[in-house]
């Protein structure tokens, strides 16, 4: 009886592992096959000889390195701006009583459910008028606007968890209001900052609608938009495409492995408390 149960569990786990991992495995294996093997019938389950050709062509002859660089710059700056602006707002929301707080929160809530399609046309016209299409600034600011409400909402939850007694003690010791934020609240709400930062990072890393609309020059494109242009060209080159897929996935995967706990905590915190 026990043996049967253990066996069925193992079977179920193997099934889950295959369903989740096989697509990723296939992406990796395809990227390591040479062109003849990619299109071979029947397809080979393992690549017979590893070939790094697609990777070298991706890194040497395509614009993928540029896209990669752009994605990193945009992600880093967006995270920095969103975290600092949202921290200030969340600090104000949790430590002060003021008129208009509820209105502000309603706006934050509403902004979170606004579909991107209501913003894309007006923003496109706006950036066009300022001659700021094809620039880091327009992309980064657009991302900040979209992600800010979520960040403020999540951080407010985290800052609430930092006891207010600490503020009073710090004030008596001569700490200013900003000092309390930087020396007390932020360090104590570190896991919240990490969770919000990660969410922003993952979102920016894969966003395509804004990046493909506001950018038309190859020099400014981000990774997802860059790969997307790969696919629509006449005749899809599956080898380099799979290789760039791996290149795009790796950073996110590494971040996920390192920060998994913080991410899980951050995603579930709001819901379990609410």
């Amino acid at each position, binding site marked *: 009886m026990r043996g049967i149960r253990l066996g069925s*569990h193992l079977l179920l786990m193997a099934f889950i*592992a295959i*369903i989740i*991992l096989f*697509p990723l495995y*296939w*992406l990796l294996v395809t990227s390591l096959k040479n062109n003849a093997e990619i*299109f071979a019938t029947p*397809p080979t389950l393992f690549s017979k000889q590893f070939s790094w050709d697609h990777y070298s062509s991706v890194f040497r002859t395509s614009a993928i390195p540029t896209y990669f660089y752009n994605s990193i710059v945009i992600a880093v700056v967006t995270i920095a701006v969103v975290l600092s*602006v*949202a921290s200030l*707002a969340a*600090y*104000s929301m949790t430590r*002060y009583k*003021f008129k208009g707080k*509820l209105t502000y*929160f*309603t706006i934050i*809530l509403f902004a979170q*459910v*606004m*579909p*991107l*399609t*209501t*913003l894309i*046309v*007006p*923003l496109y*016209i*706006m950036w066009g008028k300022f001659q700021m299409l094809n620039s880091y600034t327009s992309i980064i*600011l657009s991302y*900040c*606007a*979209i992600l800010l*409400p979520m960040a*403020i909402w999540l951080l407010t939850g985290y800052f609430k968890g930092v006891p207010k007694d600490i503020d009073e003690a710090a004030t008596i010791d001569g700490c200013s209001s900003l000092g309390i934020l930087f020396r007390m609240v932020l360090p104590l709400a570190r896991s919240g900052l990490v969770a919000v930062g990660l969410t922003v990072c993952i979102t920016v890393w*894969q966003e*395509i*609608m804004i990046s493909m*609309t506001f950018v038309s020059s190859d020099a400014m494109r981000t990774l*997802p938009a860059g*790969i*997307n242009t790969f*696919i629509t060209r006449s005749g899809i080159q*599956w080898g380099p495409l*799979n290789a760039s*897929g791996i290149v795009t*996935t790796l950073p*996110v995967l590494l971040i*996920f492995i390192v920060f*998994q706990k913080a*991410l*899980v905590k951050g*995603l*579930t915190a709001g*819901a*379990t408390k*609410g």
Partner: protein
Amino acid sequence: MIRKRLFRKTVPYLYLMPSLLIIVSLLAYPLVYNLYVSLHRWRLSRPDKPFIGLDNFKSVLTDDVFMGVMGTTILWTVIGVALQMTIGMLSALYVDERRRSKGVLRSLLLLPWVLPGVVTALMWSWMLQSDMGIVNVILQFFHLTDHDISWLGSDMALWTLILVNTWKAFPFWFLMLLAGLQDIPNDQIEAAKIDGARWFNVVRYIKIPHLMPMIGATGVITTIWTLNYFDLIWVTTKGGPVDATSTLPIYTYRLAFEFFDFGKSSAMALISLVLIGVICSPYMRAMLKSIRE
């Protein structure tokens, strides 16, 4: 003294300033501007942009494509979310009862969710190629089918994409429900088991009622996400073949950046906004109530 008090009163607003600046200039103003565009005949091919009142809304709503798009969107969202919920619930129940392998299983099941959407899309479209895709090869190897299935052809595409999206999106349900399940006090379940309750009854009378608030919140969030999801459909089919996979966001985007009819696209975007507002108004009301308390 007076200056000091005045200062104390303005401090909270000072902290809010940067965020307000961004929200007003890059969310509120564009939203109003969107309304303005929707009331004009606004095509990139024409320099004049006359005011036409609600004509854009009228032409969107009476468009033949519109009803099709609405139908597709409803199928895509309702069936998609139902599938995500079912699979998320089953996997959460399963993992919750595994003591030893919980950590490994959780990381594994979360993986699709962190994968970039574009990569998911190209990975699956490579696997689902009708002539050389691995999925067809596997199905034929196990004799489940004897011909090549055209997964992204006009009669299959929507269902295929719903399944792929389920693969990508169910981990969020899994994560939320798992967190909820771990909150249930163990003694309740133990007591029920001692009373002779079977697994199914424990799930039905203890676990699911306990998860209800979580299911509600996650349901609203994932409904909005699924309704607005753009990446997968855009990268794999661009709404085709022949609008078979055109959902609201895809069609709205195409109206603007393929047909260059900004007015009509803006009207469509506002219709989506109203739709989403209706869907999540009970949720927003509950959120606001909890904040007021």
